[in-house]
């Protein structure tokens, strides 16, 4: 072994993020002290990021089966069957820590990583969605982060050639020191041609393909498993550097080599790089792997085995091919000017053996690496919740409701995000039927009558006040967005963004949120196909709002029957579907107008949610709903305002909303299971008959038309020119970025 390596001690292990107990466990598993290289392998694969040490015990509670499920959690991504021989592969992942340290490359490589997760499954990526959270955009430091993240996403996704069709951007001071960058990718594959990350067949060759290995990103997974402090800037070398052009070549080469039939299994080298692939792939297949590290293509000199194994250089894959067909693999990668180097063989001994010029530098059972520690750490309900719940929003003064609506439309969280979306290619692939800016994006499936609808959602304020209900509401809202497009939700992917799990209050938030997601998924009959947990989103002891971001994919059988959120013509009837119960607790109104985050959430009836979504889908599917828009941040008043201002031409409305304890509750109160629908006058009877069948509460609330948005509740009236709302909505976020 190399002489210059540091001596392995407990202190060294600690420095690499392992605990004393974990270090003892490594010695126990190996029956000896680990070498320096072996210690590196354990430190990366046993990091929170790779091993899900604190979360796995909770994640077991998520429902992960359904008749149409083709691949659940445990692979690079999940997959659902949409019929006609096609499957949708999708997953969401976070790149929060790298994006805070280096926003442009952090976000770019976040896109790159999730794209690879999709095309390693054999699927061609057809859509990207980004769920972003930042502090106040009025702050120049936050603006720099937003600009960096958005241009990083734009650069990588546009150059690669996958459209960015959706996602959301929300703002709260709790994200100022720790922005969230979650990226979801959706791919299309023949249902019988899904590839998996397996290393089967003893003696089969192991190929390293794609970009060369450098020193970038070493210990990235370990970095993502710690909180930030003033020294975080010094962690910049742990952020990887992306190359979307090479990724595009890798995509085409991988899909082409898969068509040869010579590929047994393939995995993306993401977090913990080569170390992760060479242990996880054989661990899944009950095999081992023997690799010669000096064969790995390198772009820096004198790299040690430790560095090569742990590098997180981008745009690389590990591929196991069928013995005797090596030349077929080499030929395809040569065509695309990419490296494809045989670095080892699949073995039967269940061990990862790493050699350097023939000399063994590490021998570790793959099970020991892949099966990291699992903790069941203490959880406790945060003491701060009692005060927050006791707060009564009705003790606050009631502002002029028209001014409040204008302020809400101009609130950065609600306002138009066109500033970001116009930097993203939204149409490459010519599939995008509904562009960003509606409840869900819709993409057609060429060669079929079908389309898919995709949406992401997650309201950190609601989850902060009530993690279980708030997380359940996030699932409901993402699924409702998909239903409002006319699509039937098929699967969920979740990205759990939380503070440090070593704090019992944070772990309680996480456990409750998982329970809420599980309940909602069961009630709506959608499985969780996979996802990602991002802990340690803290800077100087301040955690982000607990933010589960939920991605939902749904299918529409007839792509000709879709709905979007904007009013289409004057003179159409407006209906409000769903229950009347709403609350100002945790609402955007309470924050944007009163600067408060407190109160209780509205009740959530999951059975009601299911029925409302089913009714909306039926209305859209029957061609009865000319617009359908979920009531979310800002309550029914903002829902109506968005319907008025987001169409090709603004259209006003005159509406009377259900009364409540106070007018601001009626206008701006938020509650689940509510949808605004517009109906042509000719089809009112048909719509009423359909609603009668659906057994949900609903009522006509008004009519579209005119140049003003008029919303009444009792004697209180919002009355504002639609142009004024449109201006507030268009400029609310962009005025900070110009």
């Amino acid at each position, binding site marked *: 072994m190399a002489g210059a390596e540091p001596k392995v001690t407990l202190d060294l292990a600690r420095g690499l993020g392992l605990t004393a107990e974990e270090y003892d466990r490594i010695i126990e598993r190996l029956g000896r002290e680990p070498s320096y290289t072996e210690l590196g392998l354990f430190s990366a694969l046993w990091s929170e990021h790779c091993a899900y040490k604190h979360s796995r015990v909770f994640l077991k509670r998520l429902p992960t089966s359904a008749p149409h499920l083709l691949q659940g959690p445990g692979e690079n991504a999940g997959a659902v069957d949409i019929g006609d021989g096609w499957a949708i592969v999708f997953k969401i992942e976070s790149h929060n820590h790298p994006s805070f340290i280096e926003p442009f490359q952090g976000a770019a490589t976040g896109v790159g990583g999730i794209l690879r997760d999709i095309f390693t499954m054999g699927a061609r990526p057809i859509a990207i969605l980004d769920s972003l959270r930042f502090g106040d955009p009025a702050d120049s430091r936050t603006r720099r982060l937003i600009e960096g993240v958005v241009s990083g996403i734009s650069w990588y996704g546009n150059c690669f050639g996958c459209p960015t069709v959706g996602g959301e951007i929300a703002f709260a001071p709790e994200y100022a020191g720790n922005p969230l960058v979650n990226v979801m990718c959706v791919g299309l594959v023949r249902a019988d041609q899904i590839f998996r990350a397996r290393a089967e067949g003893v003696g089969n060759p192991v190929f390293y393909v794609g970009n060369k290995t450098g020193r970038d990103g070493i210990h990235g997974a370990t970095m993502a498993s710690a909180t930030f402090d003033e020294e975080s800037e010094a962690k910049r070398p742990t952020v990887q550097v992306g190359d979307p*052009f090479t990724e595009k*070549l890798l995509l085409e080469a991988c899909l082409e080599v898969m068509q040869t039939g010579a590929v047994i299994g393939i995995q993306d080298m993401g977090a913990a790089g080569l170390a992760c692939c060479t242990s996880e792939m054989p661990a899944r297949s009950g095999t081992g792997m023997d690799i010669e590290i000096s064969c790995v293509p390198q772009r820096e000199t004198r790299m040690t085995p430790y560095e090569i194994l742990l590098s997180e250089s981008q745009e690389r894959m590990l591929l196991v091919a069928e013995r005797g067909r090596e030349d077929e693999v080499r030929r395809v990668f040569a065509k695309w000017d990419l490296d494809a180097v045989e670095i080892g063989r699949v073995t039967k001994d269940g061990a990862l053996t790493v050699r350097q010029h023939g000399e063994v530098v590490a021998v570790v059972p793959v099970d020991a690496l892949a099966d990291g520690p699992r903790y069941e750490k203490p959880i406790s309900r945060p003491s701060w919740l009692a005060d927050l719940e006791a707060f009564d929003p009705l003790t606050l003064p009631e502002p002029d409701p028209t001014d409040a609506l204008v302020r809400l439309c101009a609130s950065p969280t609600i306002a138009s995000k066109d500033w970001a*979306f116009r930097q993203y*290619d939204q149409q490459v692939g010519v599939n995008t039927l509904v562009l960003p800016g509606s409840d869900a994006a819709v993409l057609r499936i060429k060669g079929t009558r079908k389309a898919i609808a995709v949406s992401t959602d997650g309201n950190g304020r609601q989850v902060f006040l009530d993690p279980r209900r708030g997380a359940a509401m996030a699932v409901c809202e993402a699924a409702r967005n998909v239903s409002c497009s006319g699509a039937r939700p098929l699967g969920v992917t979740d990205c759990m963004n939380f503070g440090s799990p070593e704090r019992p209050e944070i772990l309680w938030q996480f456990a409750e949120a998982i329970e809420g997601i599980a309940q909602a998924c069961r009630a709506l009959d959608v499985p969780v196909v996979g996802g990602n947990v991002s802990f340690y989103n803290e800077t100087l002891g301040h955690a982000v709002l607990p933010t589960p971001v939920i991605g939902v994919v749904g299918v529409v059988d007839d792509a000709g029957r879709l709905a979007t959120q904007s009013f289409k013509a004057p003179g159409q009837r407006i209906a409000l579907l769903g229950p009347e119960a709403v609350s100002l607790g945790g609402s955007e109104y309470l924050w944007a107008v009163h600067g408060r985050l407190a109160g209780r959430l509205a009740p959530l009836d999951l059975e009601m949610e299911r029925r409302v979504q089913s009714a909306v889908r039926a209305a859209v599917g029957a061609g009865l709903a000319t617009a359908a828009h979920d009531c979310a941040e800002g309550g029914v008043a903002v829902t109506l305002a968005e319907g008025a201002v987001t169409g090709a031409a603004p259209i006003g409305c005159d509406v009377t909303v259900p009364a409540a304890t106070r007018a601001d509750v009626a206008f701006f109160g938020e509650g689940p299971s509510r949808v605004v629908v517009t109906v042509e006058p000719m089809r009112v009877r048909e719509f009423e008959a359909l609603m009668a069948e659906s057994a949900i509460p609903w009522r006509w609330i008004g009519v579209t038309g005119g140049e003003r948005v008029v919303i009444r509740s009792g004697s209180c009236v919002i009355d504002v020119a639609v142009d004024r709302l449109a201006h507030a909505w268009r400029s609310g976020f962009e005025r900070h970025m110009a």
Partner: protein
Amino acid sequence: MRFGVVVFPGTWSDCDFHYVISEVLHQPVKYVWHRDRNLADLDCVVLPGGFSYGDYLRAGAVAGKSPVVEALGEFVARGGFVLGSCNGFQILCEGGLLPGVLMRNECLQYRCQTTHLVVDNVDTPFTRGLRPGQVLTMPISHGEGKYYAEPDTLRALKARRQIVFRYATGDGQVVRAANPNGSLENIAGVASETGNVLGLMPHPERASETVMGGTDGLLLFHSLLGTLVEDGTFLKR
């Protein structure tokens, strides 16, 4: 008419053009690899959008020196048609088949949005079915689409009526507010002197089906195929 869609490393509108030509226009079409010099069996070569070679040097600069682009000179000389969109336009400029150059957008950001184009010259094979001053709607998607040419070149372009499309408002006004990238005189598309090479930054393939938001992109193909009558309506098949 036999179409070839060129694929460079990093091209991404190739599949979209292929789809529109074969599934919407029902014309024979094949992919042409960037190392291929043999264009003998083609009538029209399409250079699609994307980031050829990553556009890490200048957009289109490396592709402009590729074997397939070198072969285009002879193809054009014998009367073949060439349509370059987005990166394809950049490649045609870098390869010397069209005058001028495409620079970084004035806003220094990528732009993906709908644009309106007013037609300046209806005497090219790609625009002969259009009316002078007709306004077309097509999306753009690029970071380097700011057209620039030296004053002498611009004068020559005007004298020879090589400026084919300009960014305009929906009612055809060529004004600064309608210019999405800072292009010189709102230039969005330019033809060769002979007219059989056309480059434009917008994406006609993304405006070729009603479900995608419009069909104005098809008008270029129908002009080329001669399946248009003068008032811009499609001839019945």
